[in-house]
């Protein structure tokens, strides 16, 4: 039964269906668009930045010392992160929680910490610079919204690895989805 529908044991639905994953990928692509636009401003390819609510808030935030603390501006880092989310969300079929646990784990870690970093950036903005940035907030909201729906798939993979550990199968091979190793685990 689980073989045909790919529903994990003890679950009521398959967390790796496209209906589950596509909305997260779309959110990641929107986030990628916003972050790319902001990094074009930070890299001086665009002269002004769109800011409907907080006056010169965006300019203050996007030109702050913290945003240029790394070799590449922080928005570019965010854009790379969103791209990793989108790609990791697309790789693998609807049984990837057991056929390719590694990509599910990469996906979960990329979505989780990235969301957290975005929140931290929002937190630091008003405290350090007394300014808000509309598009930075929008990006943070997108990151936060992605976390919840991505985690169920990660849970299914972790439970699967847990079952692999207690079976005769090699956990290492199961994690990377090598050969027929996954057939030995339920």
């Amino acid at each position, binding site marked *: 039964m689980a073989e045909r529908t790919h529903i*994990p044991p*003890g679950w009521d639905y398959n967390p790796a269906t496209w209906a589950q994953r596509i909305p997260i990928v779309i959110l990641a692509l929107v986030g990628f668009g916003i972050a790319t636009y902001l990094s074009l401003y930070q890299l001086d390819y665009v002269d002004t930045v769109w800011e409907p609510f907080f006056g010169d808030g965006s300019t203050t935030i996007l030109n702050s010392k913290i945003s240029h603390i790394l070799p590449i501006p922080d928005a570019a880092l965010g854009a790379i992160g969103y791209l990793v989310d989108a790609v990791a969300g697309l790789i693998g079929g609807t049984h990837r929680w057991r056929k390719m646990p590694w990509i599910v784990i990469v996906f979960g870690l990329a979505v989780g910490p990235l969301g957290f970093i975005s929140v931290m950036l929002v937190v630091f903005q008003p405290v350090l610079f007394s300014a808000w940035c509309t598009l930075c907030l929008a990006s943070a909201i997108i990151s936060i919204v992605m976390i919840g729906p991505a985690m*169920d798939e990660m849970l299914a993979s972790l439970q699967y690895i847990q079952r692999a550990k207690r079976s005769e199968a090699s956990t290492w091979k199961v994690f990377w989805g090598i050969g027929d190793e996954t057939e030995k685990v339920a």
Partner: protein
Amino acid sequence: MWAKLMNIVLGIWLMAAPSVLEYGPAASDNGHIVGPIIVTFSTIALWESTYIVQKWNYPFALWLLLSPWVLGYEVATASMSDMAVGMMVLVLSSRKTGMKNRYGGGWSSLWEKNPKHMEDQRDNESEAERREGF
């Protein structure tokens, strides 16, 4: 569901209140830090598989009850608002949610001796064996 949405609104209020009610610097910084954290945890908790994250609000809600004294708020409305928000978030985050789906025992199954997803697996196998005539 509504309890988590209420928590999100309360978190946004924590972020906005310092400018709306003209708090002093300590209360402002506190709201700007704790607000986004409560919004984040409550948003993640909207999904069934991660509803447990609402409990992560507890320490921050408790901190809101204490912070007017610890940080010495200058504005009385800041103290009242933060304590009221802290109380409400504490109560709302402790609400039990009815689960629509099962998750193989959830996150706690990962450190259980007999996790739910393994029991179900054995049940499935024996059922399949019965059907195949073993």
